[in-house]
C-alpha cells in the first residue's frame, strides 16, 4: 500500500467524462505517472490518465459534484483513491494488455514463478498446476478467437490489490470453474460407481408450519455484523481453522477464538429471545433451538390430527 499521496498543487487540467473532477491539477497525474514508472512500460501519460479515469469511474462513479466545494472535496477523495492504487503494477498490467514487450519481460520475470507456485498451492498436483497456470497465461496474453481482437485478462486488473494477489484470485477462480465443469462432465459409469446415478431426487421439504424458529434465527443472524457472520460461516460451515480465519480477517487467533465463543452465546440468547417474542416460553424456545433441523419441517400435531381423523372415518 502506498502512503503519502502526490502533490495536489499544480495547474488544473481537464479530464472530464470520468470520475475525476473536470479540473484537476496537472502535476497530480504527472506525479502518479512518474511514480508508477509507466513510461518504462511504454505507456504515455495520456494512456495512464485514461486508465486511472476508467478505474476511478468503476469504483467511485461518474457523478460529479455540482458545487465548487463539492467538486473540491470529491477531487480530494479521488486523489486519495488514486494514490492508494497499486499504480506501478497497474501500469505494468495494462501495458502488458496492450502488448508491450518490455512490460511482458518484467511481468514474466516477476510473476512467472510466483504464478506456478500459486497454481501448485491451489491444485496441489503438478500436472494440473501446470495446466492451470498455462491456461491463465493464455488468458493473460489474450488469445484471439475467430479473428476477434485480442483481449488480455490483465486489462481487468484495477490496482485495488496487488497484482500477485489478483493473479492468485484469478487462478483460484479458474481452478474452481474448471473443477465445477469437470464435475459436471463425470461419466455415467463414474456416477453409478459413486452411487449418484440413481440417487433419489431430494423431495422438496414441506413448508414448515412453524416458521418462528427460522425467522428468529434469520433475524438474529442479520443482526450480527458481517464480520461475525463470516467468522461463523468460515469456522463452522467451511471448517477453516481459527488461524486461517484470523489471517483473512487480519486479527489474532486468540481474538478470533474469544469472538467465536461470544458470538455463539449471543446468538443463542437472541434466538431464544426472538422465539419468546413470538409466543414461546423459554423452555420451548431452548428446546426448539436444540431440535434437529430436519424435524423442523415435520408438523407432528398436524400428522396426529390427520391420523385421528382417519381413524374416525374408518
Amino acid at each position, binding site marked *: 500500500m502506498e502512503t503519502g499521496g502526490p502533490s495536489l498543487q499544480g495547474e488544473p487540467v481537464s479530464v472530464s467524462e470520468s470520475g475525476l473532477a473536470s479540473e484537476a491539477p496537472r502535476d497530480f497525474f504527472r506525479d502518479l505517472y512518474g511514480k508508477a514508472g509507466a513510461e518504462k512500460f511504454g505507456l504515455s501519460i495520456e494512456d495512464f490518465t485514461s486508465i486511472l479515469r476508467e478505474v476511478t469511474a468503476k469504483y467511485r462513479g461518474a457523478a460529479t459534484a455540482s458545487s465548487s466545494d463539492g467538486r473540491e472535496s470529491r477531487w480530494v477523495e479521488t486523489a486519495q483513491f488514486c494514490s492508494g492504487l497499486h499504480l506501478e503494477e497497474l501500469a505494468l498490467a495494462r501495458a502488458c494488455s496492450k502488448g508491450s514487450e518490455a512490460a511482458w519481460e518484467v511481468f514474466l520475470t516477476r510473476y512467472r514463478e510466483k504464478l506456478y507456485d500459486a497454481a501448485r498451492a491451489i491444485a496441489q498436483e503438478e500436472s494440473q498446476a501446470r495446466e492451470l497456470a498455462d491456461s491463465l497465461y493464455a488468458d493473460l496474453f489474450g488469445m484471439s478467437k475467430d479473428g476477434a481482437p485480442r483481449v488480455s485478462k490483465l486489462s481487468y486488473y484495477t490496482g485495488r490489490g496487488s497484482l500477485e494477489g489478483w493473479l492468485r*484470485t484469478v487462478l483460484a477462480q479458474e481452478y474452481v470453474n474448471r473443477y465445477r465443469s469437470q464435475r459436471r462432465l463425470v461419466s455415467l459409469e463414474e456416477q453409478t460407481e459413486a452411487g449418484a446415478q440413481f440417487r433419489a431426487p431430494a423431495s422438496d421439504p414441506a413448508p414448515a408450519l412453524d416458521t418462528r424458529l427460522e425467522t428468529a434465527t434469520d433475524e438474529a443472524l442479520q443482526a450480527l455484523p458481517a464480520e461475525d457472520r463470516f467468522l461463523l460461516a468460515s469456522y463452522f460451515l467451511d471448517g477453516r481453522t481459527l488461524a486461517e480465519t484470523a489471517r483473512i480477517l487480519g486479527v489474532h487467533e486468540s481474538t478470533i477464538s474469544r469472538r467465536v465463543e461470544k458470538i455463539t452465546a449471543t446468538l443463542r440468547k437472541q434466538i431464544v429471545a426472538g422465539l419468546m417474542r413470538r409466543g414461546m416460553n423459554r423452555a420451548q424456545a431452548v428446546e426448539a433451538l436444540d431440535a*434437529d433441523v430436519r424435524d423442523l419441517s415435520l408438523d407432528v400435531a398436524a400428522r396426529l390430527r390427520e391420523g385421528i381423523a382417519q381413524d374416525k372415518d374408518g
Partner: protein
Amino acid sequence: MEELPKIVRHRLAHPAKEDAASAPETLRGAAHPDANMLSGFVERSLSEDERMAVLGHLADCAECRELVSLAFPAPEVQAALSEVPATTKTGRRWPSWPLWLGWRTLRWGVLAASVAVVMAGAFHSGILKWPAAPNTANTARTTVAENRPAPNLVTPPAALPAPSTESYAVSGAPSAHAQGARPLQNKLADQEKARSESLLQRGDVGGLAKQKSVAAPAASASQPTKEEMEKSVARLAAPPPPRPADERQYSAEYALKAARNQANKADKDHPALVANSVTPNSRAAAPVAANEPAATSRRAAAIGGVAKTAPMERDLDRKSARVSEAIQVQAQGVTPEKKADQLRDQLSAQNPAVSAGQAIAPPAQAPVAREQSQQGVASGLVPQATQEVTVTQQQAGAAAARQAAKGRRARLSAYWSISAAGRIARSRAEGGPWSELHVDDSVKFQAVSAEGNDVWAGGSGGALYHSTDGGNHWARVKIGPNQTDDQAAVTATIVSLRFSDSQHGEVVTEAHEKWSTTDGGAHWSLVQ
C-alpha cells in the same frame, strides 16, 4: 468451544436473500465480487465500506470463501509448497534460501565458525599447541608399534604373524625414542629393571626379536637415492591412520624397554661384549648428532636406535640424550633436499648398524627394507618436511610411494625371520604361516639377511649360511682371512649381518669384529 445450534448452521448455509440495493455499487449486478475486490479485501486495501460489503458477501457465499481460501493459503501451506524440489518445478528457478539455511539453523554454524577461527588463530600464533606432533606420532607408529608382532616369535613359527615390511624400519626405533625419550628418560630410569624382568619372564625372546628386527633393515638401508627419500618423506607426510596416543606411548616405551632388556641380556650372556660390541655404532652416532644438522642427526639417532638393539645398559641414557639432541637439531631449518642429501651421504658413509640378535629380514625385500628404513629415517624429518612440502605434493608423493612399496611387496618371494629356537623361519606370503628351516640344527641362528633369492643367515659358532635359491638349498660359508685356514676362521657368534646385494655384505660377531666381503663370501676382510 460451544457448538453452534443446528438451525443456525442451516440458516447460515442458506441465508435469506439480501436486499440487492444495499450492496455497494461495485457489487451490484454481479453475483460475486471480482478478483480485484477479493484480493483487495485480503490485502486490506479496500475502503471500509467496500470491505464490509465484501465481508457481508463472503459471509453468505461459500464459493467466494473457498476462492479466498484457495487464492491466499495459509503461510505454512505456502512454506510447505516452497519446499518442493526445484527439479520438479518448471521454468526458470529463482534462487531461494532453503529452510535449513535460515537464521535459526545458521546461528549455530556462525558460532561454530567463530570458534574455529579463534582456534585457528590461537594455533597459528602459538598460543595453543597441538598435544603431539602428528608426524612424530606417525613415526612412532611406523616403527616400534609396527614391530609389535615380533614378540609373537616366542610362539612356534607356524603361528607367527607375517611381519609387515614396515616392521623392518630401522630408524623407527630412534624415532620412537625421539618421541618417548624425554618423558621416558625419567620414567624408565626407575621402572626399567622391573619391566625388563617381567618381559623376560613372559618371553624375553619377543622383545629380543623385536629389537633384532631392526638390525637387518639397518643393514640394508645403505645408499638411498634421493628419489626414494622424497617418496618416503611424502609418504610419511600423508595423514596417518588414527592411533591412540597411549598406543604411541606404549610403542615408544616398548622400544626402549626392549632395548634395555637386550642390554641386560647382553650383559649377562656376553659380559665381554659389553665393553666393545655395539659401541662403535653408538659412538659413531654421537659426533654426528652433535655436529651435523637435523637429517644427519636423525640418522645418527637412527643408528643409535639400531645400536640399542644390543646396547649396554649404561648406553641408554646417553643415547636418549643424543636423541633429544637430535630433536633439538631438527628444529633448525633444513630443507628436505638438503636433508635427503645429508641422509644419503650419511647412510652411505655409515656402516649399517650391526647388532646382536636375530635379524628378521625378508629375502627379496631388501629394497623394501631399505625403503622402510629410509621411511623410518625420513620420518624423523617429518615435522619440518610437512611444513615445506605442499599438501598436494604430499598426497601425490604418498600415493606414489605407496604404489611403489606395494609393487615391491608383490615381488617378494618370502619373508624371513628367526624363530625362538634359533632357526631360520620363512613365510611365503605376508601374513602367511611361518615354517622353520632345518638348515643346521647345531647352529643357533641370530641374524638373517636377504636380497632377492640370496639369503644369508648367521649364528652361533661363526656359522654363516648362504642360499641362492630363496632358502631351498644352503651352503656354509666360512668367514676368515683365509678360506683354507680353518684355524683362523671366525668362531664367534654372528650377531648381525647385512648384505646389500648378493656380493657385498658385512657380518658382525659378538667379538665385535666386523667382516666384509665383496665377492659373495669367497673372501673376507676384517674391517677395522
